[in-house]
């Protein structure tokens, strides 16, 4: 059956590069968090809250947009494994927090994208949505990748 073999084929594909599917998720989540950091920094520069980056302008905006797109792409394989294979689980506090926060991630992402395109909303709406999204990613990383790197192994 097509669906029955998806998990096995996915595992085979992932393990051609990584030691396990968990390792793949840990590293993709780390990349997404790093790019989210770029998002926060470039957004802070666009809003004039930091001055150590190059001057505001098209380049910063371009870096902001592309770091966001790449961060989104990095979350997709993690989403596939976590949501469609593992599902919502609550065996302990770490996994429960990870499941609950993970459920909200794409909802906040969609809200943020819609807020970007809606000029009629108050000025605080976009930074609030962006910081919420980055915070959710941080919590997800702390409850998965950091746990994996410190408890299981630090490697690919």
């Amino acid at each position: 059956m097509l669906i029955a073999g998806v998990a096995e084929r996915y595992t085979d594909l992932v393990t051609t590069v990584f030691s396990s599917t968990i390792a793949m998720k840990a590293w993709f989540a780390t990349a997404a968090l790093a790019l989210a950091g770029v998002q926060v920094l470039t957004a802070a520069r666009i809003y004039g809250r930091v001055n150590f980056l190059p001057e505001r302008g098209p380049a910063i905006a371009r870096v902001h947009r592309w770091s966001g797109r790449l961060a989104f792409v990095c979350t997709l394989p993690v989403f596939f494994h976590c949501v469609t294979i593992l599902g919502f689980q609550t065996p302990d506090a770490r996994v429960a927090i990870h499941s609950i926060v993970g459920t909200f991630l794409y909802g906040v992402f969609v809200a943020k994208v819609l807020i970007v395109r809606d000029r009629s909303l108050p000025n605080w709406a976009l930074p609030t949505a962006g910081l919420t999204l980055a915070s959710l990613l941080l919590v997800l990383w702390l409850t998965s990748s950091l746990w994996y790197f410190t408890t299981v192994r630090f490697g690919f």
Partner: protein
Amino acid sequence: MGRGWRPILAGGAVVVGVFALAQAQVFAPSEPAAAPTTTGDAGRGETVFQENCAGCHGDSGQGGVGPQLAGSGLHAAEVTSAVQQGRGVMPAGLVSGQEQADVVAYVVSISSPSQ
């Protein structure tokens, strides 16, 4: 209802959709996959165990965050199922393929009650 609610409503709909998808686990194996056809090497499995399992189960399988494996009398099918499906807080798929066969052979060797 003002336009300001649109992002919240759309985001809420996505949250509900993701939760439903997570509950469905559409690509989760419906039953434990067949036991590996390759024979595991307990010697290589010890290395795999030290890299992937010892953090929770202890260097000698004596237990720690995870349960004790040494002397626990586990069978290969039980170990294989735990590795493939996960168990409790242990995530599924920490190792796969030949590494899985090797680590299963090692765990079975140390879980023998005579150890």
